[in-house]
C-alpha cells in the first residue's frame, strides 16, 4: 500500500512538472464563440512558430467557472463568452486570485427565427413571439391575470399570421443562445404589457417566472445544442420555425430564410448597425497573469484583434461574425494590446 501511494504521488509530481511546461494556450467557454475562436487559433498555429491553442467548448457559464478557478498552468488562459461577464463571476475570479482580466469584445451575433425556403417568410413582432412561446400569457380579456398558453396556431396569436400550428425548434436552457433569446425576445415581449413590466420592480422573481418560462407542451421543442440538427429538421418540415445563431443561417442561406422581427430582416448589415433587435455581443476574457507565462498570448491577441480577422472583410466575417464598427474596433484593439484590466 505504501509503495502504491509513493508511486501515485510520483505520478502526480511528474505530471505537475510536465504541466508546468505547458506551451499551448488553453481556451474554454461558449459554444457560440467556439467557431470563431477556432479559426483564429488555427491560423495562428499555422502562421507562427507557436503551438496551436487548444479550445474547449464548455458553454459560457462552465467556461467562467474554470477560468475563475485560479491562476497557474492548470487553469485556462482565456474564456469565451456569448454575454458579458457577470458581476458574481467577476467576484469569484477576484476571490480566487484572478485579479487582472482583459475583456475583448469580438463582434456581434444575431439570433434568427427562421424557416424553410419552401414556406413563405414570416414577419413577427417580439410580442407575438412571447405570446406564442411563453408558458403563461396574459388573459385575452385584458384583465391583469395569467392563463396557461392557449394559442395553438400562429393565427390565434395574431390574425395577420398564417394558420400554421405553432412549432418552434430551439435550444435548451443550458445554451447561451437560449439565454439571449429569453432576454432579448421574451422579456421585451413581456414588457409590452404594462402591468407585467411594473412587476419587475416590485417582485423580480415573479417577473422572471412569467417572462423567462418557455412553454413545455409540443409547441416549443428543445433540440439540444446541435444547431445543425435544427437546420436539418427545418428543411424537412416547412411549417416549423427554428431559433439559432446567424452564422448557421448564413451558411444555409440556400435552404432557410430568416423571419422578419419587428419588421427588420436579419441581414448582415441590419445586425451590424443594431437595427435588427435580436443580437448580442460576443466576448472573450484573458487572464493577464498568464501573459508571459504561457508563450504566445500577446501574439494571439494581436492576431485576433487584427483587421485581417475581426475587420469588415476579415476571415471571421466569412464565418458569420458581425464585426464592430471601425472606431470601436480600434479602441478594443488598443485596450486589449495594452492589457487594460476589466472593471465591473
Amino acid at each position, binding site marked *: 500500500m505504501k509503495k502504491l501511494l509513493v508511486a501515485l504521488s510520483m505520478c502526480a509530481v511528474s505530471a505537475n512538472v*510536465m504541466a508546468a511546461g505547458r506551451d499551448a494556450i488553453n481556451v474554454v467557454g461558449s459554444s457560440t464563440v467556439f467557431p470563431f475562436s477556432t479559426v483564429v487559433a488555427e491560423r495562428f498555429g*499555422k502562421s507562427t512558430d507557436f503551438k496551436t491553442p487548444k479550445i474547449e467548448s464548455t458553454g459560457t457559464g462552465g467556461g467562467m467557472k474554470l477560468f475563475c478557478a485560479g491562476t497557474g498552468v492548470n487553469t485556462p488562459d482565456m474564456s469565451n463568452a456569448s454575454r458579458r461577464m457577470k458581476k458574481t463571476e467577476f467576484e469569484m475570479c477576484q476571490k480566487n486570485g484572478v485579479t487582472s482580466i482583459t475583456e475583448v469584445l469580438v463582434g456581434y451575433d444575431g439570433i434568427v427565427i427562421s424557416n424553410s425556403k419552401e414556406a413563405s417568410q414570416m414577419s413577427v413582432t417580439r410580442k407575438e413571439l412571447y405570446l406564442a412561446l411563453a408558458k403563461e400569457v396574459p388573459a385575452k380579456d385584458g384583465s391583469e391575470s395569467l392563463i396557461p398558453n392557449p394559442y395553438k396556431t400562429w393565427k390565434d396569436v395574431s390574425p395577420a399570421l398564417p394558420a400554421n400550428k405553432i412549432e418552434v425548434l430551439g435550444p435548451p436552457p443550458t445554451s447561451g443562445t437560449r439565454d439571449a433569446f429569453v432576454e432579448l425576445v421574451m422579456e421585451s415581449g413581456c414588457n409590452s404589457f404594462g402591468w407585467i413590466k411594473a412587476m419587475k420592480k416590485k417582485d423580480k422573481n415573479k417577473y422572471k417566472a412569467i417572462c423567462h418560462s418557455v412553454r413545455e407542451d409540443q409547441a416549443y421543442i428543445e433540440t439540444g445544442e446541435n444547431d445543425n440538427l435544427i437546420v436539418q429538421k427545418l428543411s424537412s418540415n416547412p411549417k416549423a420555425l427554428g431559433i439559432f445563431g446567424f452564422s448557421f443561417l448564413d451558411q444555409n442561406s440556400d435552404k432557410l430564410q430568416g423571419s422578419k422581427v419587428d419588421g427588420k430582416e436579419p441581414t448582415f448589415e441590419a445586425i451590424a448597425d443594431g437595427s435588427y433587435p435580436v443580437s448580442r455581443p460576443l466576448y472573450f476574457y484573458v487572464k493577464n497573469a498568464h501573459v508571459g507565462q504561457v508563450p504566445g498570448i500577446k501574439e494571439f491577441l494581436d492576431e485576433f484583434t487584427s483587421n485581417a480577422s475581426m475587420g469588415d472583410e476579415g476571415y471571421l466575417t466569412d464565418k458569420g461574425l458581425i464585426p464592430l464598427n471601425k472606431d470601436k474596433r480600434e479602441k478594443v484593439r488598443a485596450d486589449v494590446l495594452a492589457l487594460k484590466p476589466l472593471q465591473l
Partner: protein
Amino acid sequence: MSDSTQKVINSLKKRHRKEKVFRAAGATAIGFGFLLVFLLITDIITKATPAFKQNWIAIEVDFQPDLLGIDGLDLTRLPKGDYRTVLRSAIFEMMPEVSGRRDKRSLFGLISSSAEFEIRNHLVANPADLGKKVTVWVKVDDDVDSYLKDDVVVGEPGIRISEKQATWIKKWVDSELIESRWNSEFFSLGDSREPESAGVKGALTGTFYTMLVTLVLSFPLGVAAALYLEEFAPKNRWTDFIEVNINNLAAVPSIVFGLLGLAVIINIFGLPRSTPLVGGIVLTLMTLPTIIIASRASIKAVPPSIREAAMGLGASRMQVAFSHVLPLAMPGIITGTIIGMAQALGETAPLLMIGMVAFIVDVPGGITDPATVMPVQIYLWADSPERAFVAKTSAAILVLLGFLLIMNSFAAFMRKKFEKRW
C-alpha cells in the same frame, strides 16, 4: 392405442406449427436487423464518398522576393514572407478579366484559405524557386469543392456559389486547371475549421493513445482482481460486498466517471487536462467492472477437475491459477476485454468533463499531449455549420468503424491462438 398417445398425435400438428412460427419470427428478426445495418452502412458510405476526394487547382505563382517582402539571400526569413499578397496577385493574374473590389474578393474566396500556407510550404521545401514563376497545386474552397462534386446548377437551392463564380469555375475546369485527387490529407492532417483541410489523424492518434492507456491499466488490474476473487479470496461478507459493488459499478452512467476524473485525477493529482493519460484512466474505471465480471465468469467455467489434477500432481495454488486456470480462461477474458474496450472507444460523455471535447489541431505525440478521440471528432464535425463537414462526419464514422474492426479482429486472432480444448 392409449388415450395419451392419441393426445400426442392430435397435438402434433399444432406443435409443429408453433415451431414453424417461431422459426419464421426468428428469421424475420435477423433479416430485419440485417436490413437496418445494411441501410445504415449504405447511408454512411454514400454520404462519406465525397470526403475521400478533393479538388485541387494549379496556380502559376510568381515568387518575387519584393512581393514576399523578404531578402533574396536570407533563407531563414522564407517562412515569414507575405504569401497572401503573392497568392492574390497570382490568382488575379490568372483571371485578368475580373476587376472591382467585390468581384476580386469573391474570386479569392474560391481558393482554400489554407492555400497561402501551401505555397509557403512549397517555397520552404524548394528554396531554389525564389524569384521564379512556378506552378503550385492548391486546394479549392469547400464551397467550390461541394459544387464540383454535387453536379448541380447555380441558382438552384443548395448552392453557395454565385453565377459569376460558376463561370470562373467553368473556365478553370475547361482549361483543365482543376483536378480531383484522392484526399490523402484526410488521413494525414489534424482537425481544422476549414473542411478541405480537416483530417482525422489527430483524433485517430488520440484514440490510439487513450485506448493504449486504458488497456495497459484495465487488463492487468481486471484480470488480477478476477483471479484473486475467484481462486484465492475467502467467501465472506467482505467479498460479497465487493462483488455487489463491482456489479453495481458496471451499471453506473459513464458521465459519473468523468466527474470523478475531474475531481480526483485532475484537481487532486494535478494530471494535465485534455490528455490521453487522464482520458485513459477515466475509461479504465469504466471498463474495469466489465472486464472483471467477464473474467470471473470465464475463470469459473474452467472445470474443477483441471485444478484438482494439477494439485494432485503437487502444484501450488499459485501454479494452478497461473499455469492452468488462467490460460484456459484466456479466450473468455479477451472477449470481456474487447467488449469493455469497444464501449470505451465509443464514449464521449466522461471525456467532456476532463476537457477532451476540444478543438485540437496538432497531432498528439504522446500520452501527455492534448488530444481528442474519434467519437468527439465526429460530434464536433456534426456540429459545424459548414456543409462540407456532413461528408467528413460520415467519413470519420467509417474510420471509427474501421478502427473497431481492426481492434476486434486482433482480439479474435488472439482468442483463436489461446483457445485450448480439454
